[in-house]
């Protein structure tokens, strides 16, 4: 009993650590001052300013749309890539492909941004939403591969053999056995890609044009003038929204989940049995 409590304390500690800066940010969105130092008394003025700022709202909408689309496509391509890598037998080829995969992760954003800019202008691809989308997909793919690949490697060969023995075709094996098994990896990949897209500033700056702007670019560009608390208010709104979405989604899922989990366990049991 004592141990149970102690371990929970650790988790609580980690959560508090993760959320302290965010609560700090949001707290200042209610400060009467102009900057994040010395709390000056309560006000909602920064929120009023935010909701009146159409340009800012448009930037937020564009940013979210971009992040959703790019991480969705990156997840699909990355998952396919991970499947392809896991089918590779020769370690040399595998390591080479994996290293190539990681190049965009190790290269600082300015290098990626500058080379993509040269690349797009050389191919006469107009700068704007399209070029930004392509770039975001490009730099999100490696993290998806990194998240999905371990799940594929864990998957027991016996499961695949069993499925084949039961007469499944490749595509059936994929749809019924492989994909359900690696789903947690795919979801992690999607969330990480989403994070990468939201946070990117340097690459987006170089490849954007035609009035398409993301939130990160706007925030970094404002640093020279000092970031106003309107941005804090915006982060507060987005954060609370995301929080409600996550919690709501989770509890809606909860209901059908228990049913599905049971179903999944059953089918897995069948496969296991057949394997022995």
């Amino acid at each position, binding site marked *: 009993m004592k141990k149970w409590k102690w371990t929970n304390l*650790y988790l609580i500690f980690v959560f508090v650590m993760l959320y302290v800066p965010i609560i700090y940010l949001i707290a200042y969105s209610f400060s009467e001052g102009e900057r994040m130092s010395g709390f000056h008394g309560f006000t909602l003025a920064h929120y009023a300013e935010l909701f009146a700022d159409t340009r800012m709202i448009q930037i937020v909408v564009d940013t979210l749309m971009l992040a959703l689309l790019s991480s969705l496509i990156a997840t699909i391509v990355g998952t*396919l890539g991970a499947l392809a890598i896991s089918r590779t037998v020769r*370690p040399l080829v595998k390591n080479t492909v994996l290293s190539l995969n990681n*190049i965009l992760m*190790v290269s600082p954003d300015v*290098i990626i941004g500058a080379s993509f800019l040269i690349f797009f202008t050389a191919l006469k691809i107009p700068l704007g939403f399209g070029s930004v989308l392509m770039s975001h997909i490009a730099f999100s793919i490696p993290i998806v591969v990194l998240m999905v690949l371990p799940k594929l490697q864990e998957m*027991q060969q016996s499961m695949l053999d069993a499925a084949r023995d039961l007469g499944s075709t490749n595509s059936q094996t994929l749809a019924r056995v492989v994909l359900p098994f690696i789903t947690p990896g795919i979801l*992690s990949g999607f969330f*990480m890609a989403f994070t990468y897209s939201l946070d990117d500033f340097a690459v987006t700056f170089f490849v954007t044009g035609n009035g398409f702007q993301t939130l*990160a670019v706007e925030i970094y560009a404002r640093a020279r003038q000092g970031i106003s608390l309107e941005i804090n208010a915006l982060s507060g709104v987005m954060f609370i929204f995301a929080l409600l979405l996550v919690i709501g989604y989770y509890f809606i899922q909860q209901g059908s989940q228990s049913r599905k989990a049971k179903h999944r366990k059953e089918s897995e049991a069948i496969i296991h049995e057949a394997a022995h």
Partner: protein
Amino acid sequence: MKKNTATSLAFYVPYALWIVLFVIAPVILIIYQSFFDIDGQFTLGNYATYFQSGTYIMMTINSVWYAFLITLVTLVISYPAAYLLHYAKHKELWLLLIILPTWINLLLKAYAFIGIFSQDGGVNNFLGLFGIAPKQILFTDFSFIFVASYIEIPFMILPIFNGIEELDEGYVNASRDLGAKWSQTFTHVILPLTMSGVKAGVQAVFIPSLSLFMLTRLIGGNRVITLGTAIEEHFLTTMNWGMGSTIGVVLIVAMFIIMFLTGERRKKGAKRA
């Protein structure tokens, strides 16, 4: 080995296309640029500069050392967290809540840390309650590694959690039943079985940490200069793209070496079951 060629092709093509267009093409461009000096003349001088001046060698050592520290701290914090999460109620919800902070802009979070760690900030005010004089927290290795780890923790917890999820409770119980101590069960059963998740987490943290640049300035006060800082400077201040690319090439080569050293070997083939 019967393969449905049509479906296999569908797997390989998009990913291969991505590698060719967005990885190999830019890398060729970077390598090409690394052979030009600031006036646009062909030269091998950039590489000579890199390997001859102690400054860049020291930067490289700094980068690797701090990336290692950040990865280590992140791992030490994340592994138990992921492990405990595995046994928690509503674990998927908690997991999502761990990702959520990463959606707030990095610069804003760094500014929040400046506020929290400054002489007048939250931590020092708290210490003041116990009569402890304000401490210099910012611009120390501690604050830099702390904030960098803070940023990276979700990227480490997630893959480890996924690794632990597949851990078959049966093995753990069996090991305990056979009279193994908890530490033995951990090193011989749990850790090896969750290794692939740990590996993914380490890669997801270590590789980007090598080229960290913004936090070194914001929180570290440019006390530590890493390769990322130098590249940033060469691209955006000096506009010496040649030298910046040279450092980029070195980073990529270093990453390749690390990947091959830690990568899969031949003996560990497909046969595990």
